[in-house]
């Protein structure tokens, strides 16, 4: 029999401890669980967390209408607006999360438990991704219907692949930020605030990123959503071949490299953070 906590109860009532990969998996699932299941228990988020982005997207669509932009630009705003859900999730529910966990006393519980911290971070990412994908889908569908957006998809499998690699790179970055922001302490809040509109601008959430010029677009490519969004836009609005900053294949390759780098850097930063935190007694200190 397997208990809800993942340990196996053998005949005779002895509990077999989960170790190694099983412990990693159970820890990951335990951290992802509240994020995924919580959303089904407290459904009021459907109003608050989809209405707000819909209002924001509507604002951008109406601006495009006010300046008589071609209809596909409404689609750009809708797609960008849906993707902001992922960026906000990474900032507020990944990057800032360990700081808040420390503030609420959860971080010390993670550290003293046998579960690996990397699994905790991955669980945060998986839970956040599932939860946010639901929200982004609702925003995309509602806004597409409201504003009569039409899509011309070049390749569905490639679109799914681009989205998946973008998300791995993005949440890898979120896992890295979680350690960095924890060190930043009280400034984490302000860092997250600071990384909203400037990133929407540099990454071209509401317009093709090539409009920012090659230099800014290249620099902004460190944010996985820049190239991911550009590639998805090229695949979803296939009617305009001049749309993209780079070709989809190149953007996909860069995203794959970013995914590996961010995940490796997250593992390194987490180990370093834990070591320094233990040495300096900062893992349970809540004043900063």
């Amino acid at each position, binding site marked *: 029999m397997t208990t809800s906590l993942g340990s196996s109860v053998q005949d005779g009532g002895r509990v077999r401890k989960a170790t190694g990969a099983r412990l990693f998996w159970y820890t990951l699932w335990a951290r992802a669980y509240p994020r995924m299941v919580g959303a089904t228990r*407290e459904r009021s988020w459907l109003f608050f967390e989809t209405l707000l982005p819909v209002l924001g997207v509507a604002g951008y669509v*109406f601006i495009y209408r*006010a*300046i008589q932009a071609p209809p596909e630009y409404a689609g750009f705003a809708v797609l960008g607006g849906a993707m902001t859900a992922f960026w906000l999730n990474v900032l507020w529910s990944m990057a800032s999360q360990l700081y808040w966990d420390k503030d609420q006393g959860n971080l010390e519980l993670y550290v003293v438990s046998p579960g690996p911290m990397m699994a905790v971070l991955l669980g945060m990412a998986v839970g956040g991704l599932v939860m946010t994908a639901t929200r982004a889908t609702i925003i995309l569908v509602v806004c597409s219907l409201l504003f009569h957006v039409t899509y011309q998809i070049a390749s569905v499998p490639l679109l799914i692949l681009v989205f998946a690699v973008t998300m791995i790179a993005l949440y890898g970055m979120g896992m890295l930020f979680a350690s960095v922001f924890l060190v930043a302490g009280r400034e984490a809040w302000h860092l997250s605030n600071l990384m909203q509109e400037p990133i*929407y601008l540099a990454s071209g959430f509401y*317009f093709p990123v090539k409009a920012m010029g090659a230099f800014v677009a290249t620099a902004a490519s460190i944010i996985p959503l820049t190239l991911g969004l550009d590639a998805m836009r090229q695949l979803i609005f296939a009617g305009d071949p001049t749309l993209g900053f780079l070709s989809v294949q190149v953007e996909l390759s860069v995203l794959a490299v970013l995914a590996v780098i961010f995940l490796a850097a997250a593992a390194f930063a987490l180990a370093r953070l834990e070591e320094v935190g233990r040495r300096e007694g900062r893992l349970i200190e809540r004043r900063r």
Partner: protein
Amino acid sequence: MTLTPSRRGLWLRVLDLPAVRRNDGLRSFLVATWLGWQIESNWADPFLFAIYSVVRPLASVMILVVMYSVITQGAFSQPIFPYIYLGNALYILVGQIITGVSWAIIDDREHYRVAKHLYTAPISGYTYLFGRGVARLIIGTISVGITVGFGMAVFKLPIRPAAIDWPLLLASTALGVAALAGLGLIIGAWTMTMARHFWSVGEAVSGAMYLFTGAIFPIDILPAWLRWIGFIFPVTYWLEAARRALLGPGAAGFTTFAAFSNAALLGILAAFTAALLIGSVFFYRWALDNAKEKGLLDMESGY
């Protein structure tokens, strides 16, 4: 950023003035203003804080500039451009004030966990919340000034200081800010009574007004069945009056408010402001009682 001994001495002398000592409301307001400013600003050195305060609003307005530029190939001399730019710049104040007060409630209750200490102290909770909003107002005002100045320097916004209708600008802005403070108080008081989603209330109202008040596009662009919503928000009249004051005849060209004189705009705005300020006093009292009844006043949800 901490108070130097001389500044602290000055501040204590202000608080020690007989007029301040005798008046709970004024004393609470002044202390809350100081506290709010410290919370907003003392996490970084002044230079970093200044950068932080201007980068977000500038990035926000630049998103619109790039969108506009992509479509019009940089036709910044068209009347719609200053309309969009100024509306977005002025709207910074709306977001700061509307969300500022409700965030003060959330900060005190959830983050610093001092709500119970505050409400057992001899303060006026209403003016305390007003004071907490002032710091955001100061930061917002600086951001608006820099954003408008940036637009004048880089995009040649047609604003000439000598041609600005200063009485209209100052009167409409004073009324607009007071109306926003009243609205912020109501939303903040509402936040006290909530156990879920209190993070989102200020942003929801601010986001709705961004869409419906003609902040970034003329209300005429909205579907006809939605346009009326814009007319029930004081922000709509303030933005229109402020645009007229700053742009002069250049603000014309959009028909939504063509039939409204400046005096009519100010009159409507004054009526909204009075209603919101008076309403906020009663709503605050109701919300405070309600929060006490439900045990929400010092609740830490960790939500």
